[in-house]
């Protein structure tokens, strides 16, 4: 066992330890806190690189298990696993995390809770990395929940704002719905396979024996057990990854600081759901006949629907971060679609490229917000291209990658998903849904960029001052000119921009190195692959779709510079009704409000009534009876027992008064008594021996 595998636990442990230490710091120790968090993250990044290099040299699944606790004759084993999947995730999480940590120094520099922020960030990083390397579903679940907790804490970081507090609660509760499914899935899995360890010398739940048994085991509704478990686990993944219908929390989560949005709600935590599906892929994909499992079908459908649905909503949003949030939901749908139709490699490839360009976009948005002194409404921005050139350039790179413009990272990964969907043998509909989503993606991103960076500056200085005063934190350092962000923020942007642009080349059809790496094979360079299997036509079609989206949006928004912040949206002018519905996010929140929330409220009322009248009445009756008995008892007590007892007490009191006289407070009289006691003791011993 090589050193890196033995010590893989250090990667999550370092940031977690940093979080524990930072928690002890005073608020004033900003540099120390940031330095510690970034330093440990850097160390983790280096170790992740070593792990990655190790996997590169010998792709294999290596793991370390150890007994954690024993109940009955069972051992709960914990451990960590290093395989190409984990290695890729480790590098991505640590690199993106490191860059975002650095970015946060600049973004949060005026916040008074700077150290707390870094404490949470480091804790998040530790838990996320632990989730990635966990070799046990329980351990993974624990990390999963810690990740959820830090997400809650960070969304509600500015807890003084009611919106942030509400968003944090919402995120926590909605994801809990999914986690319930995950937990049930865990229980079922444990009852069937007897272990929750992934890999354990053939005894793990993801290894051949257990999978085969579960695939053969039929459950209700025509599902196999493996698919049933897979679907329950997918519930958790859907909650975390914001799949329809549990996507409602993710846009609201944008109330948190922007680095948090970038790190947790774009790059890493929401990808944890995708990662979970990828990790459990052997279980999900298991069938007895080699066909497509029911679980994967559901995954693919949910993914495709989410991809399109979220893209629609994104078209009509005003908040720069909200657009990106819906875009994230949409892209997560693509990942799920990729996993469902194509397998681990395809979904994971999009996860990785998406992590880079989406965190880039969020950080870019953060930079814009920072530069505009806390303004988030795209209508009030504009013309930032000249004022913030670096931000603009990197944002454009991220936007092109997200849209899937050829040669950018997103193109290769998204195209691969579409290609796999096209070849799916169950249904062709997901492909069309995905393609439509791609069109919308290009459309809403172009709209956003046109609003933010083109045209002329629209905000008034009065509005700036007002917003700066209301928006605590983010950029609340007083009204000022719109400005480019400091280097500590732009440098991470540039690095991420480079990744967003060029990362796709590790997974082109001609050289599918990434996919091969995940599957433990060797990639060869073969330009002929473009020709085969209908790839080139599909690529052309998707490019055309993208350019169509770009063109359409440019025609609507970019042709004429948008003049004022109050001007109505071009699309709104064309289709006011549809636009309104979309702007209200298709009333999903309201739907939940009248159904789920109303139901909960109603049942609470019933419980309240039950409590007040039924249970309380019973309790009251019992209390009355007891009180009656007590009254009888007490009268007996006063009449009979007390008089005797009082007499005793008086006697004791008299005796005590007598004895008190001997306690004079004089040491020597005590000593004298001791001496007399000694004499008595000796005499007593002597006589007792005689007698």
């Amino acid at each position, binding site marked *: 066992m090589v050193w890196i595998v033995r010590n893989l636990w250090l990667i999550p442990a370092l940031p977690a330890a940093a979080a524990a230490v930072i928690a002890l710091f005073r608020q004033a120790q900003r540099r120390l806190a940031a330095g510690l968090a970034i330093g440990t993250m850097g160390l983790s990044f280096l170790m992740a690189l070593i792990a990655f290099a190790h996997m590169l040299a010998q792709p294999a699944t290596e793991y370390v298990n150890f007994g954690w606790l024993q109940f009955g004759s069972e051992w709960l084993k914990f451990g960590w696993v290093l395989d190409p999947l984990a290695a890729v995730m480790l590098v991505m999480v640590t690199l993106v995390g490191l860059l975002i940590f650095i970015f946060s120094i600049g973004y949060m520099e005026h916040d008074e809770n700077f150290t707390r922020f870094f404490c949470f960030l480091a804790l998040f990083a530790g838990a996320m990395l632990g989730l990635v390397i966990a070799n046990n579903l329980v351990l993974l679940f624990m990390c999963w929940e810690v990740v959820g907790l830090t997400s809650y804490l960070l969304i509600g970081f500015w807890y003084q704002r009611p919106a942030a507090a509400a968003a944090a609660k919402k995120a926590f509760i909605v994801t809990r719905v999914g986690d319930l499914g995950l937990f049930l899935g865990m229980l079922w899995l444990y009852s069937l396979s007897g272990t929750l360890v992934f890999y354990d010398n053939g005894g793990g739940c993801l290894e051949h024996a257990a999978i085969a048994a579960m695939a053969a085991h039929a459950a209700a509704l025509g599902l196999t057990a493996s698919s049933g478990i897979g679907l329950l686990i997918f519930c958790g993944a859907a909650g975390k990854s914001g799949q329809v219908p549990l996507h409602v929390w993710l846009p609201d989560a944008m109330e948190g600081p922007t680095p948090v949005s970038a790190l947790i709600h774009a790059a890493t935590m929401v990808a944890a759901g995708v990662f979970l599906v990828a990790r459990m892929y052997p279980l999900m994909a298991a069938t007895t006949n080699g066909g497509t499992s029911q679980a994967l079908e559901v995954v693919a459908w949910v993914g495709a629907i989410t991809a399109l649905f979220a893209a629609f909503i994104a078209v009509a949003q005003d908040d720069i971060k909200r657009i990106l949030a819906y875009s994230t939901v949409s892209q997560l749908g693509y990942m799920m679609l990729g996993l469902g139709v194509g397998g681990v490699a395809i979904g994971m490839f999009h996860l990785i490229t998406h992590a880079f360009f989406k965190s880039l976009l969020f950080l870019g948005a953060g930079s814009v917000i920072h530069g505009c002194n806390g303004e988030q409404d795209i209508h009030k921005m504009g013309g930032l291209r000249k004022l913030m050139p670096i931000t603009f350039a990197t944002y454009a790179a991220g936007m092109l990658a997200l849209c899937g413009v050829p040669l950018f990272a997103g193109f290769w990964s998204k195209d691969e998903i579409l290609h796999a969907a096209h070849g799916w043998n169950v249904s062709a509909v997901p492909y069309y849904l995905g393609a439509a989503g791609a069109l919308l993606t290009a459309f809403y991103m172009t709209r956003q960029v046109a609003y933010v960076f083109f045209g002329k500056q629209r905000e008034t200085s009065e509005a700036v001052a007002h917003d700066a005063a209301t928006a605590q934190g983010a950029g609340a350092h007083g009204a000022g000119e719109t400005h480019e962000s400091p280097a500590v923020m732009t440098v991470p942007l540039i690095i991420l921009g480079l990744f967003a642009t060029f990362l796709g080349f590790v997974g082109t059809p001609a050289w599918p190195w990434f996919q091969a790496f995940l599957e433990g094979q060797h990639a060869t360079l073969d330009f002929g692959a473009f020709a085969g299997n209908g790839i080139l036509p599909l690529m052309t079609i998707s490019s055309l779709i993208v350019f169509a989206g770009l063109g359409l949006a440019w025609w609507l928004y970019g042709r004429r510079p948008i003049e004022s912040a109050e001007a109505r949206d071009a699309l709104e002018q064309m289709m006011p009704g549809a636009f309104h519905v979309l702007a209200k996010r298709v009333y999903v929140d309201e739907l939940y409000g009248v159904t789920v929330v109303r139901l909960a409220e109603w049942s609470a009322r019933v419980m309240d009534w039950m409590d007040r009248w039924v249970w309380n009445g019973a309790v009251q009756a019992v209390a009355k009876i007891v009180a009656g008995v007590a009254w009888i008892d007490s009268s007996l007590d006063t009449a009979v027992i007390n008089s005797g007892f009082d007499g005793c007490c008086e006697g004791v009191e008299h005796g005590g008064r007598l004895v008190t006289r001997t306690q004079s*407070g004089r040491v020597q009289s005590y000593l004298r008594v001791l001496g007399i006691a000694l004499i008595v003791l000796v005499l007593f011993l002597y006589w007792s021996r005689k007698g």
Partner: protein
Amino acid sequence: MTPLNGCLLVSALLFSIGLGGALTRRSAILVLVGIELMLNAANLNFIAFWRYGPHPEALTGVLFVTFSIAIAAAEAAVGLALIQAVYRHAKTTDVNQLDTMKG
């Protein structure tokens, strides 16, 4: 009279003198001195029993006295520190006047 008895008698006398002093002297310091004397009487007993006892090679008496001396040193230090503190407070070391627990 055997040598052991001689030692024990000396020790008993020493003990009684210490006890008498502790019972009659008014100075807290001398009370402490009396207690030290009693302790030393006990030590003398240990050494005498070790010397004339059946198992001198076990060294129990010697070691016990060694520990006892160490503890007596600690006791004297703390006791005298207490007397200091009390004196600073009550401006006297007369044990007859130190009969309240109130400060």
